């Protein structure tokens, strides 16, 4: 009944072609909550109205002609054709209109591209099919999945009416939290295939590409919850990896940061759990993380995703299974990064004792914790980097001062590729821990950082001499390295001044 009514309303709306603001029927682009999204909206409306105007003129002429110049009305065809003046006019006028469109479009494009002078950075990694968020300034790190209610309702023949699920398919378990009125730089990459991160209210989307870093920025005016979705086909569950951004006032954001850091510091609960508890809790972990590929019943998808039921891995050595789950293999992602020891123990025990398997054994969180790489959780740094701070490069600095300063410089500039603990991303971004470059000749390292190489950007023009020296000292004496040497800011400054100045837009 209600559905029929809505449908009728929709049809009536369409019949009148009304663009009225009906909450349930968004017909147009939304204005969004950032300056850039407003600019894009204005640009969109400008072009739309130009098109509507041209359409009225062209179609008006055509339909006038169709009505009046018909044989059934006795209209005799005139045989005119080829008129150079007319043809030149209808080439020049559109050209001028295009020039008129290009000017505001170019302005908006340049604004969209300008990630300079950001106040904080968040790294976004696309996974099949979830988002990973890392706050490069304070070390907060988490995965964001489709919320449980939507996940249940979206299963085929779930029997749940999506209309009863709040924010169906647009809700997550952990939203991205950002402060308002701050210029936030996002860096994007992906772990498996290409995804695209889109929140319409922010005004843009950006592709996340495995092995590459993309950048974009936003500055949200109004506190609120803004929802979006992955917009690049990324496989089976492309439709089920939404994005939720919660923008808060600075004070609320600070409180959230504090609370989140405290929770992270507590770490997972490593106490032993009973067999039944492991299995029953594991079912929920499985539904959220595994069922997309291995299917809810564990039967897998022949030819693509192996079955869990009767699998020789799941029914074989528990440690071997745990290692596979933790470290991934081929299309199987490394869940050691996404789930905590307790959840991992639960889901592994569940697969061994459900879904048609009955091995009868279990694995405890403690055993998992031992298999996980040494806890390299980035220390939460509350220091804020002041990007435009005036620095005195001539002053001598001690190794300790440089290393201390280097930590935040590293988090801002290097950690998105080389990772917070210097482990890199194997195959794409080299590890810094035990790297021959970082532990070798210091001048060679400085040269590489100043001028870049391949995908490594040239930092010579983007970092000031003190920050530059600080991050050199940090990489050589932290992240598992202990070379012991460092370089003074004054030496960096003289190298920088010898560099050719390029695109100096500071």
């Amino acid at each position: 009944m209600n559905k029929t009514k809505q449908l009728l309303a929709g049809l009536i709306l369409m019949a009148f072609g009304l663009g009225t603001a009906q909450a349930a029927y968004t017909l147009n682009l939304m204005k969004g909550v950032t300056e850039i999204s407003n600019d894009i909206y204005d640009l969109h409306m400008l072009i739309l109205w130009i098109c509507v105007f041209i359409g009225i003129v062209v179609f008006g002429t055509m339909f006038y002609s169709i009505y009046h110049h018909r044989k059934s009305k006795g209209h005799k065809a005139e045989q005119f054709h080829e008129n150079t003046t007319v043809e030149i006019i209808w080439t020049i006028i559109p050209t001028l209109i295009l020039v008129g469109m290009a000017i505001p479009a170019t302005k908006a494009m340049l604004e969209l591209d300008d990630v300079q002078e950001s106040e904080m950075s968040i790294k976004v990694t696309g996974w099949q099919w979830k988002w990973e968020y890392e706050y490069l300034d304070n070390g907060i790190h988490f995965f964001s999945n489709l919320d449980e209610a939507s996940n249940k309702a979206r299963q085929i023949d779930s029997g749940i009416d999506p209309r009863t699920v709040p924010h169906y398919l647009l809700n997550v378990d952990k939203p991205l939290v950002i402060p308002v009125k701050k210029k936030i730089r996002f860096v994007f990459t992906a772990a498996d295939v290409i995804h695209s991160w889109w929140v319409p209210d922010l005004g843009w989307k950006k592709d996340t590409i495995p092995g590459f870093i993309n950048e974009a920025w936003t500055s949200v005016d109004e506190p609120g919850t803004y929802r979006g979705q992955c917009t690049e086909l990324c496989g089976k569950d492309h439709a089920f990896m939404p994005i939720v951004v919660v923008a808060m006032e600075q004070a609320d954001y600070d409180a959230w940061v504090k609370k989140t850091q405290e929770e992270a510091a507590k770490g997972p609960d490593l106490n032993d759990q009973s067999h039944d508890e492991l299995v029953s809790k594991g079912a929920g972990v499985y539904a959220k993380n595994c069922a997309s590929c291995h299917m809810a019943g564990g039967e897998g998808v022949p030819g693509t995703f192996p079955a869990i039921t009767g699998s020789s891995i799941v029914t074989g050595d528990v440690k071997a299974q745990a290692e596979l789950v933790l470290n991934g293999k081929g299309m199987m992602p490394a869940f050691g990064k996404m789930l905590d020891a307790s959840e991992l123990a639960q889901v592994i025990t569940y697969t061994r004792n459900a879904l048609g398997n009955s091995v009868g054994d279990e694995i405890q969180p403690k055993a998992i914790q031992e298999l996980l790489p040494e806890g390299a959780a980035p220390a939460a740094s509350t220091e804020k980097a002041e990007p435009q701070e005036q620095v005195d490069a001539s002053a001598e600095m001690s190794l300790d001062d440089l290393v201390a300063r280097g930590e935040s410089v590293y988090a801002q500039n290097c950690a998105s590729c080389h990772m917070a603990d210097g482990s890199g991303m194997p195959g794409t971004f080299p590890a810094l821990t035990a790297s021959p470059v970082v532990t070798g000749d210091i001048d060679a390292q400085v040269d590489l950082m100043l001028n870049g190489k391949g995908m490594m950007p040239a930092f010579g023009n983007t970092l000031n001499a003190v920050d530059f020296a600080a991050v050199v000292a940090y990489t050589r004496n932290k992240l598992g390295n202990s070379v012991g040497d460092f370089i003074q800011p004054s030496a960096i400054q003289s190298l920088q001044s010898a560099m050719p100045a390029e695109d100096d837009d500071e």
Partner: protein
Amino acid sequence: MSAVVAEHEHDEHHDHGPQKGLLRWVITTNHKDIGTLYLVFSLAMFFIGGAMAMIIRAELFEPGMQFVDPQFFNSMTTMHALVMVFGAVMPAFVGLANWMIPMMIGAPDMALPRMNNMSFWMLVAGVLLLASTLFMEGGAPASGWTLYPPLVLQTGAALPFAIFSVHLLGISSIMGAINIIATIFNMRAPAMTLMKMPLFVWTWLITAFLLIAIMPVFAGAVTMLLTDRFFDTSFFDAAGGGDPVLYQHIFWFFGHPEVYVMILPTFGVASTIIPVFARKPLFGYSSMVYATASIAFLSFIVWAHHMFTVGMPVAGELYFMYATMLIAIPTGVKVFNWTATMWKGSMTFETPMLFSIAFVVLFTIGGFTGLMMSIAPSDFQYHDTYFIVAHFHYTLVPASVFILMAAGYYWLPKWTGNMYNERIGKLHFWLSAVSVNILFFPQHFLGLAGMPRRIPDYAVQFADWNMISSIGGFIFGISQLLFLYIVIDTIKGGTGEKATDEVWEDAHKHGLEWTLPSPPPYHTFTTPPATVPTEHI
């Protein structure tokens, strides 16, 4: 002596009639037979690709997952596109080219008749190979018709088959294109100078050059996918020093001209039909030729407007934005030309004209949204949403497909010698024209409101427009059965009214094909015509 001559003539007649039985269709080298094969095949593929679209619209009828698994849904969107592009629209235009180009330029056949036969059967092999992937372990390709890596490399057993199928389709298209170019350059009647050729011939000539330029590029891109998957190369894998975005650049260097392969012959047919029913010459023949050539040239230098969000340098974004906006100029020239051709004519509205007028209007709407999308910053909102889906379906369904329908109605009486049922033809038109808008217009709203493309399920605020769109889709799908009925009915005799040679009033002034009998004999223009009509110029 005279007996020898007589016997020789008798032999010739005997040898050159159509072969009896089904084998005729397998070994034929006659351009009319091969044209028919192409048209029948493409119509069959139109219904198969359409059935896939019906599955897509059924799943999207309501929020929630009702009928298919998301992976199969992705296979459907992928296969729907591949079948429609490579199985339906492109072969349909090749079929028209085979039938009409020799008859329009006064040639006895295509220049390379045996290759013509081979390119058709290779098309069949390619499409069947592609269709067979539906039944393979892991399912048909599900990465979208663009086959972007790394996702496409996750395809199951189907991947090498799909790639080999693309190779076959590419070879088939290239051979067809070579044939068309050779025919147009070498076999025109002496009086048929280049600037007297009907626009359908002109647009196909330009399209054929596009095909030769782009199909090897696509073949190269998919071969790189093949070696990445099976021979440990890393063209598109960052871990080995490659770049997934490189594939997108190569693909769209093929892909953008490819969409013009489907629209340029459409322009040609519209420019052929509208003057006949307006009883006026085309307003600007030479400017239409130049506009087509400009669009073809521009199509090669705008590819990255499909990739505004991949993270190009801002200079690249601006260049591709400006270059793309330029396409609006020659396209505008075309629309203004068609309008000026109708202006002060003496129009009648038989089914081919109805479809052609709907094409001009609805294609222009697709052009407007294209212009909107060329604006790079706005495209950061539009990209990969239903707004894009609406845009390219407006330029393909009520444009290319409508014009193929128009061409069918326009030339069926010539091909069969029978008039089709005008009443059912008009019914088919009105049902199609109304339902295609119910189907695709709401998708603009969905995209702007934030619905991404290629998703099997959606948030509930998108529910109503999706339902309306699906209803439009079902009506459109069912309406096309009327076309099938009309085609079969006309071949069988239609209304019983025999078609005259010129079929449409004064059509013989517009094209050589209307100076031939309806249906034309198996061999036509064995000697070139002395004069050619010039009314269309």
